């Protein structure tokens, strides 16, 4: 969600099939293991504690981002309710920041929504990877899906056992949800918006800094570095030519461009 957790999730068919095989193996262990309940429980209690620990540290890590989002909303003239609405209903940091940034710049609703959805496409990949670890009940799946973000998936995938993955997903998702929304509320209510206070204190400069912090982990890989640079160039070049928000969407074209260039120079 913050993008900084970063995980490389592969939803390819082979990995899903491999996951299913592992699930079948642990299924038989569950059936035959009743007399080993105490050892299994000890082991899984330890693992559950580890998952809770990971969830807690990720929850703490997103809090400053949440505060930044709350502040940015206030600065854009949005009420704390709207800020909270974004943080609870959309519940993905980069998309939230993008939408508010586009709107604040005078962009259309469509441009804001499309920017956000493009950033959230990876949630689709997360859902496909997490689906086998979800319980069968349809309404539980529907409810739990709201928590499908970087961090919940990352915590879930830090373990291999299906039931622990579900546990990890829940503690990660709920932990982030609470932290993210509380910090959004704090940022939205504790920072005044009116007058020149925002530019005097340089608060408007926190937006680019926040985006850069979200981008930073992705700059480590050469391919994504090239994509980022190309995306920035495309976006900047189009600023004088297109209405607000569209340059950002157009920057997405750098992905196929760079991939094609990479293939062409091989």
């Amino acid at each position: 969600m913050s993008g900084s957790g970063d995980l490389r999730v592969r939803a390819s068919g082979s990995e899903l099939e491999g996951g299913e095989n592992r699930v079948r193996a642990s299924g038989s262990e569950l059936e035959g293991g009743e007399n080993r309940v105490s050892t299994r429980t000890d082991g899984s209690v330890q693992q559950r504690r580890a998952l809770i620990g990971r969830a807690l540290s990720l929850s703490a890590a997103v809090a400053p981002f949440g505060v930044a989002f709350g502040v940015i909303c206030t600065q854009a003239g949005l009420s704390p309710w709207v800020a909270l609405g974004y943080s609870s209903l959309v519940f993905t940091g980069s998309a939230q920041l993008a939408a508010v940034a586009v709107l604040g710049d005078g962009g259309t609703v469509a441009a804001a929504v499309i920017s956000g959805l493009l950033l959230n496409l990876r949630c689709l990949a997360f859902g496909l990877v997490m689906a086998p670890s979800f319980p069968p009940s349809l309404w539980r799946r529907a409810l739990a899906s709201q928590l499908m973000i970087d961090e919940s998936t990352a915590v879930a995938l830090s373990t291999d056992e299906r039931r622990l993955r579900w546990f990890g997903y829940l503690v990660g998702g709920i932990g982030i949800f609470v932290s993210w929304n509380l910090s959004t509320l704090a940022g939205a209510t504790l920072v005044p918006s009116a007058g020149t206070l925002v530019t005097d204190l340089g608060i408007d400069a926190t937006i680019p800094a926040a985006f850069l912090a979200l981008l930073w982990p992705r700059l480590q890989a050469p391919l994504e570095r090239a994509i980022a640079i190309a995306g920035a160039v495309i976006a900047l070049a189009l600023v004088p030519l297109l209405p607000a928000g569209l340059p950002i969407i157009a920057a997405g074209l750098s992905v196929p461009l760079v991939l094609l260039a990479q293939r062409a120079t091989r």
Partner: protein
Amino acid sequence: MSPAVVALLVLAAGTYALKAAGPLLLGQRPMSPAVERVATLLPAALLAALVITSTAASDGRIVLDARMPALLVAGVLLWLRAPFLVVVAGAAATAALLRLAW
């Protein structure tokens, strides 16, 4: 309803659809590797675009002001592995001080 609220509701609905598609449509084929690859590479391009437009664009024009040096300071702090709060505070302080000086 203000644009922000409309965008919120539509984005929330669309995002939820993306999140729930996997768990609710289980049994379908997974995303093709090509689509999945593009989906994971897109954030790099979009975030970079957001960085540059929030720094150097104002009202449909390219404007260089205190935000650019602030961004450079943020970059240095990130490179030095400073915590997020320090990065953001450093950027704000840079912009504020530059505006004070001018």
